């Protein structure tokens, strides 16, 4: 990365200072930086989605790019169909295109209900895709790794933590007596887990700040 007072570095440094200035109080510079970030992000994602999804996967594969004089390197499914009389498997992208257009119907209040169909399709396929994998990796594999002998302190902690944590989330019986006591142990495990997660989060956020300070002092100002 180029160091010093280049245009890009200076702009990035000013934007960083603008965003950090919110810590002092809400101000105009922060608002400008925030609006700029939102706008640039929206534009960036639009371009990425067009060039990574719509163009290569839909327009190039179907042959729409070729119809308008573009050359992605091979004929599209429509060209194969009309020139060679063969149905290419890429013709299936027509359905994806139709589902995409149906999704946009949400913008028209009178026929907005049409958008429910592609949403149902997406939810259904995602659920199907994840069901087996989640069950295997997040249920069965975790269950298997929790059935372990009490041969070490770590193993005892894992088994006791898992059992008491599960009992804490058991709501079908009143939490008193032995059940209440075990559930209270579960609370301790949960609290320690949340504490560890919070500690990691603080560490992560500090790292982001270190990255920006390094950019300002080393890359931009060249002091380090």
């Amino acid at each position, binding site marked *: 990365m180029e160091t010093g007072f280049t245009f890009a570095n200076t702009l990035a440094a000013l934007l960083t200072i603008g965003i950090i200035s919110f810590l002092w109080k809400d101000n105009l510079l922060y608002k400008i930086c925030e609006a700029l970030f939102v706008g640039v992000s929206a534009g960036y994602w639009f371009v990425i989605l067009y060039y990574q999804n719509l163009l290569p996967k839909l327009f190039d594969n179907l042959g729409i790019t070729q119809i308008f004089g573009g050359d992605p390197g091979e004929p599209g499914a429509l060209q194969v169909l009309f020139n060679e009389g063969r149905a290419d498997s890429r013709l299936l992208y027509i359905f994806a295109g139709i589902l995409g257009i149906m999704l946009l119907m949400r913008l028209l209040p009178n026929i907005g209900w049409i958008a429910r169909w592609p949403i149902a399709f997406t939810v259904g396929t995602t659920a199907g895709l994840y069901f087996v994998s989640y069950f*295997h*990796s997040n249920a069965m594999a975790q269950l298997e*790794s929790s059935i372990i002998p009490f041969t070490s302190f770590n193993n005892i902690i894992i088994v006791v933590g898992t059992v008491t944590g599960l009992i804490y989330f058991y709501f079908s019986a009143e939490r008193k007596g032995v059940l209440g006591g075990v559930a209270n142990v579960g609370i301790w495990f949960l609290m320690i887990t949340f504490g560890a997660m919070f500690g*990691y989060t*603080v560490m*992560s956020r*500090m790292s*982001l700040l270190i*990255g920006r300070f390094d950019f300002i*002092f080393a890359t931009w100002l060249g002091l380090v």
Partner: protein
Amino acid sequence: MFEKLLKLDRRVIFIFIAVALITPFFLDIKQPMTVSPEVRSLYDEFEKLKPGSKVLISFDYDPPSAPELQPMAVAMLKYCFAKDLKVYIIGLWPQGPLQANLAVEAVKADEHFKDDPPQYDVDYVNLGFMSGNEVVIKSIGSDIRRTFPRDNLGNPTHELEMMKGVTNYSNFDLIFNLSAGYPGTVEWVLFAVGRFNAKLVAGNTAVQSPGMYPYLNSGQLLGLAGGLKAAAELEDLAQYYGRGTKFMLSQSFAHLTIILFIIIGNLAYFATRGRNR
């Protein structure tokens, strides 16, 4: 005095944190590093590989997470190139392959590699970003060349020398996922490990690493590096000291400052509790 402390303007704390983070930039102190078992496991998986082994590295992060993940990427790329491992770069995040390019440039600039810098399509390839999240991971299990028809430079993937004989996960000796969220390590565990039995190690941002420990414990993840501390540990193991080690000093100073304020805050609270009643 304690009442004043309890009413301390939060901006004073911000200033203390900023000073704690910036001061170490100007200090020449080497912080001793203790390597944690999960980072050691990650490194050991790389150690088991023989020269010429194929490593798939997925750069699933963007510039905001670079302070934590980029040092891991640079350290392990240096390790891979020094050991003559073949590196295959992909990205499920749009900026991931660009971060990979920056990491490779950092390796090339290192004096250890000045005489023999890593060569494209000899030591590494960058297959670029592919949209589709977990579907991409699943698709690599069938055919990586169909999943990534062109590399990051626009070359047809099937024409690359390094891609000859590479079809799916069975051709990779190890997968290293650098992840800052979705899609990331969870998806790699669910689809690459769960469905194709791939060998996976991961470098994560600190904020998401606690969620990965169950996968580590169950053996679905073979090694885990979480956050800046782990980045510094990896640099220590690989003997390539970079920004992970440098930034860790700032991190430690900030932690000490936070701990100090927590202690002061609690002392002030307990000292004034009776008076407020």
